[in-house]
């Protein structure tokens, strides 16, 4: 199903209005600094301390960063983005702090503000630098710690802050809540689809996301078709359907925990064995890798990205697909948070192969894949436009080298960013959803 580009552009315009909706977070400078420091102290554990102790400043991480590659601005070197955190660590936590304090200036409110651009607008936490580092320094995880410190200090960029505040206070994202979900469900029922919503018990809890309810309605519809086709006991729940977690993206842990716990408690109440995360990159680590930590104990259910779930169903012979044919030539874009941060590489490719289409990998793929440029909330940050565009240009070159006529991905944010870039540069390249491809090529039972 083609996306109405006017609707898409309207959505993009709405995003531009976000900063005006953000509530101010006034705070004295000293208070900002002490709040940030408290977070840094709590979050810098054994592994992160070891990372900070091991850097030799070789600069190889720059070669891995899409933003450095595109701009050649040395300030965008990934390890440089940790300068604030490193200074805090060396002065206040390092074993040799009694010496370092003599040379290392204390961090100030101005330092926090200067770091905002580096860790929000100029980093998608894609993790490519951490894969390249010869010392094995996981830079992305510490960019996230820096974000958490800045968030506590009230320094989340306005666009991202607006959505985080909305999700934290009302539980909705872009105004999408239970009512809008029910509206989307009714629209599908009007098409003759059975949509089991708000069941008391179910084996599988399926999540969705605002982007799929508002914009990529084809994905929501396809998800329903696939689940019904598989004949499993599933439901979507109006109290816990939103997979997106703007607490995680902004670094504000209180909102991250509440958004995550809403899903976890609902899944437990349902007796769900599996929770399926929609095509939303960061929603996967938010629940799959951080959900249990926010909950305080292991989750009594399995968390799967929908691309991972589809791959498993194909591999185990339960999901049968109509072949599309080799005339369709696609390339697959790995969402960083699902691939490099989650290990889901082979499953979406298994699905594409089951569709029997022609698939060509980009020169940098799987673990080495370049981010779309909009990850970690950059797609709603007003100050990140230049960076997003630069990253898109790099991605476009990668796609063009494949000769593919379509990009397939399994992340709504990636899709938004790639479509926005294609629209901006008038690049006639469709950006398709993996689930939507599956939903429109389900083998009929009679076959």
């Amino acid at each position, binding site marked *: 199903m083609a996306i109405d580009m006017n609707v898409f552009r309207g959505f993009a315009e709405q995003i531009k209005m976000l900063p005006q909706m953000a509530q101010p977070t006034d705070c004295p400078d000293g208070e900002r600094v002490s709040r940030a420091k408290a977070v840094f102290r709590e979050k810098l554990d054994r592994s992160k*301390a070891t990372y900070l*102790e091991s850097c030799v400043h070789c*600069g190889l991480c720059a070669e891995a960063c899409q933003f450095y590659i595109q701009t050649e601005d040395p300030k965008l070197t990934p390890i440089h983005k940790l300068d604030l955190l490193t200074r805090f660590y060396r002065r206040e936590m390092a074993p040799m702090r009694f010496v370092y304090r003599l040379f290392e200036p204390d961090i100030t409110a101005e330092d926090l503000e200067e770091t905002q651009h580096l860790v929000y607008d100029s980093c998608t936490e894609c993790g490519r630098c951490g894969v390249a580092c010869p010392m094995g320094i996981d830079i992305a995880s510490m960019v996230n710690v820096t974000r958490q410190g800045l968030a506590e200090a009230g320094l989340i960029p306005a666009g991202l802050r607006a959505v985080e505040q909305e999700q934290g206070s009302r539980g909705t994202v872009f105004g999408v809540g239970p009512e809008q979900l029910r509206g989307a469900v009714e629209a599908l029922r009007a098409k003759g689809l059975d949509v089991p919503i708000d069941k008391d018990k179910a084996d599988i809890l399926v999540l969705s996301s605002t982007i799929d309810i508002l914009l990529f309605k084809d994905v929501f519809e396809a998800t329903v078709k696939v689940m019904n086709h598989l004949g499993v006991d599933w439901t979507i729940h109006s109290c816990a359907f939103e997979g997106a977690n703007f607490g995680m993206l902004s670094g504000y842990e209180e909102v991250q925990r509440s958004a995550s716990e809403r899903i976890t408690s609902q899944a437990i109440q349902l007796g769900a064995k599996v929770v399926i995360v929609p095509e939303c990159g960061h929603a996967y680590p938010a629940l799959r890798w951080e959900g249990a930590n926010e909950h305080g104990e292991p989750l009594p259910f399995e968390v799967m990205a929908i691309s991972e779930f589809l791959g498993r169903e194909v591999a185990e012979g339960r999901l049968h697909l109509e072949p599309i044919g080799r005339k369709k030539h696609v390339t697959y874009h790995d969402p960083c948070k699902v691939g490099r941060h989650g*290990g889901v590489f082979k499953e979406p490719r298994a699905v594409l192969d089951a569709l029997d289409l022609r698939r060509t990998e980009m020169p940098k793929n799987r673990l080495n894949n370049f981010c779309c440029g909009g990850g970690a909330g950059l797609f709603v940050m007003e100050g990140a436009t230049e960076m997003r565009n630069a990253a898109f240009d790099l991605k476009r070159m990668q796609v063009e080298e494949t000769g593919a006529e379509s990009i397939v991905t399994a992340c709504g944010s990636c899709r938004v960013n790639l479509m926005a870039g294609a629209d901006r540069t008038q690049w006639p390249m469709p950006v398709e959803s993996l689930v939507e491809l599956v939903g429109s090529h389900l083998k009929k039972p009679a076959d």
Partner: protein
Amino acid sequence: MGFGDFVDGPFWYFSLAVFVVGVSWRLYGMLSLASHVDLSAARGSAATGALKANLVRFFPRSALGKLLRLPVVAGYLFHVGLFALLFFAAPHVDFYRERITGFGWSAMPTWAFILASEAAFLGLMLLVLHRMMHPVTRTISRRGDYIGSWLIFIVMLTGCLALARTYEPLRILHFFTAELLLIYFPFSSLMHTFSFPFSRGFNGAHYGRRGVPA
């Protein structure tokens, strides 16, 4: 007590003590911090990931950037050369046997010493030049990175000068600069010599339990 006796005696024991206590303290300090327990269900083996990372990260990931970049090649030259000199140069083997281990091992022949020296010098000089001239390394380098590099350079230079072992003051000068390096070591980024297996291990374990082939 003359300067030579001081360098050979008290200052040697002092520098060795600073090195051992400093390195141990720094390792203890970072490894004794709390470790956040990950409650998520693992997808793969953390132990295998840690082991794998410790091996594969010796090699640059060519798929990420340009292969054979200057700092990579220079890094190999320097580290391999320095390792060979440190543990297989004949005077060093004698030193370890007499002052530390009580036993020795085969030293490398002179031609290998010359080769190792050239590799180490060339590698180090290229690394320092790269650090000073490339915008990225110039931006991210700290004063300590330069101090460490120059100290090593001076130690290697005095070591080569003292090679003939016929002029005692040069041996003492080399030993003195090596002692200064031992004192500086635990406070500097040279500490990566001991911390890298841990940082690679933590990162590898992280990816390993997530089933990411990093």
